[in-house]
């Protein structure tokens, strides 16, 4: 029962081969086996979005995905947003707008916002609110978060 299964996946552009227990989630494996602690463990029922990562272009709650399910997939975590040591424009907008208060939800917010802007580069306010509805902020800093996403989207025009 505790047999492990070999999986291969791409995490933030890097090929990884590892063995995982079937009952370990993607979140468990990212944090405990790959030492990528950006995705946070919080509600564990898919309501808060603190564990949000992108799998093959789409956001998922990594607490509700078994690691074996992503065998062969490409995973992006918040650690994969910066390029060559520079924050992405979206991350910079979060900083500039003071979107991070306690910061715990921010990796998840960033991943949802990143995925939103990939498919909808010019979102309306409603689009941003709907796109980020699965990410709760316990500091209730929603206004600054939404402002940051809209600012990053505007910035993409220049």
């Amino acid at each position, binding site marked *: 029962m505790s047999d492990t299964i070999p999986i291969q996946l791409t995490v933030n552009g890097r090929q990884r081969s590892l063995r995982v227990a079937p009952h370990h989630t993607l979140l468990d494996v990212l944090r405990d086996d790959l030492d990528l602690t950006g995705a946070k463990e919080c509600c564990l029922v*898919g309501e808060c979005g603190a564990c949000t990562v992108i799998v093959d272009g789409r956001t998922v709650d990594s607490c509700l995905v078994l690691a074996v399910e992503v065998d062969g997939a490409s995973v992006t975590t918040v650690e994969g947003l910066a390029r060559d040591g520079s924050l992405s424009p979206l991350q910079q907008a979060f900083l500039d707008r003071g979107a991070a208060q306690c910061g715990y939800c921010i990796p998840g917010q960033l991943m949802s916002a990143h995925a939103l802007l990939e498919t909808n580069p010019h979102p309306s306010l409603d689009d941003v609110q709907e796109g980020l509805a699965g*990410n709760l902020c316990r500091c209730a800093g929603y206004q600054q978060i939404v402002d940051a996403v809209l600012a990053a989207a505007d910035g993409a025009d220049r």
Partner: protein
Amino acid sequence: MHPFAYERPGSLAEAIALLGRHGAEARLLAGGTDLIIRLRDGSLRPSVVIDLKRVEELRPAIREEDGRLSISATSVMTDIAADPRVRRHFVALAEAAAVIGSVQIRNRATLAGNICNASPAADTAPSLLVYGAVVVAAGPAGTRRIPIDEFFVRSGATTLQRDELVAAVELPLPARRIGAAHVRRTRRRGHDLASVTLTCGVDDAGVTRLAYGSVGPRPVLEVDESGTLADPGSTGEARAGVLERMFLGASPSPRSMRASPEYRVAMLRALGERALRMALDRLGGG
């Protein structure tokens, strides 16, 4: 989480054989948005989890064939909500799929999983009832087709047999023009389970189909063939009387944490009228 073995069949025959071999010890995994929560809280402790996502015949697909739209078992809400054929012929299903959970949930949650989980609050159920969906169940003896109204039994229970799995959900392409709308009430805007979820469909022959959930052990379908609801000349009083009779099937639980029975019944009336208006507008607008 309790340890379990993991199986990843590549064919439908293999999946059914695994299900037959492990019986009650097995659980099927599609999107996992319900299953993994229950594996973690210990309310389900299967010895084996059978992942259906690599089954060739069940790959995500929405196909138009033989006068119906067939939605495969691993199709997710995001794709169903965006599919042009679903939006054209079954707009109330697209609307329901678009409000389930959050983006993250819709990217994983499947239509098949939503009906197999058989939550009374399942948002796709009322639309499937209104459109007369058919569940394609695959088992050792082959496939059988179960009308959706005969599929739901009560919370967590369906007429699917232990050795069967849902291969697809089929929607007959409407022979008549239908105006339909899905509406729901939640405690807060955004990501929440429905306190009332309801779909109304009116066809150009004046038949009104109304289905609602989250107000009893299973979603309910009612049909008004009198034409009263569809008739623009009907008085408000006449319509209210018909709607009231259609809501007799509601029996909301007094123990729910989401809403009181009184609130649910009041919202049922309000949403019923709203969905009927929307359905009539859409029928009129083509």
